[in-house]
């Protein structure tokens, strides 16, 4: 008998403690009544062909599998949006659909499956990020009706190039978006993480820096597994800033 148990006094009764353990283990804990909404906004433009898209697909497959049974799976929803091949697309599992559809791309982390992405086309980054913001707001309206709360939504943007318009011309249409994102972040309605992978150039890097000054990072290689680990950590603690020392140098 430990000193602590002895200190419980004359009323201490081992059988009672065992009963209390049963009572504690039997307490009903309801499923989480809040959600963490995470948009994964991924570049699938033609410059991602080859090793990049292959590594991205491998990383997504393994990550999706691990997320299905993660401790946070019950409270987390993912939405996958791609820009490049096929234009801007929403995904649910292996199915892509028209971004103008009212259908939400958010699925529970328990049910999240990764499609096999193809690389093609241009880089309509701005349109994809705006779609990400829209699907978050739409999902929040649904959650309000379901009387479910949410923590600050997260968007992870991964790209290898400069934003273009639908015809492939370099575009500066992302500039007003940067201010809109700042405003959303100040009101705690969004946190954007922006990741650059090769062969992103200086202009592309500067674009990401402007879009996410506190949370952007440029990788020198296609380390998508590392990026997804960082995403996972941001979900576990949505309010934690991603400081420079939280990031593994590539």
């Amino acid at each position, binding site marked *: 008998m430990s000193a*602590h*148990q002895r*200190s*419980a*006094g004359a*009323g*201490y*009764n081992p059988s*009672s*403690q065992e009963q*209390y*353990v049963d*009572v*504690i*283990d039997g*307490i*009903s*804990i*309801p*499923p*989480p*009544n*809040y959600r963490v909404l995470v948009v994964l906004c991924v570049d699938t433009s033609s410059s991602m062909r080859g090793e990049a898209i292959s590594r991205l697909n491998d990383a997504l497959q393994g990550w999706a599998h691990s997320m299905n049974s993660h*401790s*946070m*799976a*019950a*409270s987390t929803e993912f939405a996958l949006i791609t820009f490049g091949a096929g234009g801007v697309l929403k995904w649910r599992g292996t199915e892509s659909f028209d971004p103008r559809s009212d259908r939400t791309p958010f699925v529970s982390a328990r049910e999240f499956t990764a499609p096999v992405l193809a690389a093609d086309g241009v880089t309509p980054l701005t349109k994809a990020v705006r779609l990400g913001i829209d699907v978050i707001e739409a999902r*929040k309206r649904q*959650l*309000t009706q379901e*009387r*479910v*709360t*949410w*923590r*600050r939504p997260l968007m992870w943007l991964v790209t290898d190039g400069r934003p273009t318009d639908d015809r492939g011309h370099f575009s500066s249409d992302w500039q007003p978006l940067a201010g809109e994102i700042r405003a959303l972040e100040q009101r*705690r309605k969004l946190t954007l993480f922006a990741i650059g992978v090769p062969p992103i150039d200086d202009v592309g890097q500067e674009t990401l820096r402007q879009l996410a000054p506190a949370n952007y990072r440029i990788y020198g290689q296609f380390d998508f597994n590392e990026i997804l680990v960082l995403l996972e*950590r941001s979900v*576990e*603690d*949505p*309010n*934690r*800033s991603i400081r420079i020392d939280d990031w593994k140098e590539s």
Partner: protein
Amino acid sequence: MPEAEAGPRHPAGLAGRPRWRVRGASMQGYDHVRSGGWCEDSFAHTHIPLDDPARPDIQILAVADGAGSRSRSADGSRLAVSTALAVVEQGIRAHWRPESAPEWTALLQHLSEQVIARFVSVARAVGGGDKAIGDFATTLTTVVLAHPVVGYFSVGDGFVIIRTGAGGRSNLHLVDSAVATAQDASTTTFLTSHTAGAVRVNAIYDEAITGVFISTDGLAYTTLARDDDGQLSLVERPMVDTVFRLLDQDDFDPLGLLRLLQRDDVIAATQDDTTLLAAVLQR
């Protein structure tokens, strides 16, 4: 680092006098366990003896939740609860003592301002200037049990539940929570924030009060839900009720509270440091 504490044993010679039994536990969240980080929650309590055979001693309880994004938030939460206990105890002794709920509310409003001022002053001194104050960001919920009055002040997203009578869901009352709307669920205020108007202060007079439960936001998601009107209320089968019933038992080992906080479904539901501090009235 998990913590559970048993609180003082009943002094001899006071048999028959009502008294509060206070028990608490704190557990770091999954992310902190995995990364070897500290628990950024803190709790503490103290009491002021009363020379009144009909009333229990006054109890002062405090819980705090350090902001995960700030470098000294664990220090901040510890500073917050220790400051709250010291200032409130000193204030109550100096004003010995209000009787009505409005009088308690006025006193606690005054003391909350003193707590925040002292907290900021110490954080500034320890941190080395105004710029460092934010590193100590933390919430704070402080409750005073002056039976039959329960008073509190709170900054941030802690919450307070009162039990009346024998308990059961219909006798559990959520008396304070910052998360009034779904949109507010990801926002909170800290002692280091601009706190003017953000401090919630109240006192309740009810002879039927038999228990008080306070917690940081980590357990809110296992305890509270929105009702048909969108307002927060207790879940259908609140674990708070069972916690009260366990604490009613003289031989309940408070380490059992840690077992509760370590359950997989609690960890999955909260993803955060968790802290509970509860008091039950023994007659």
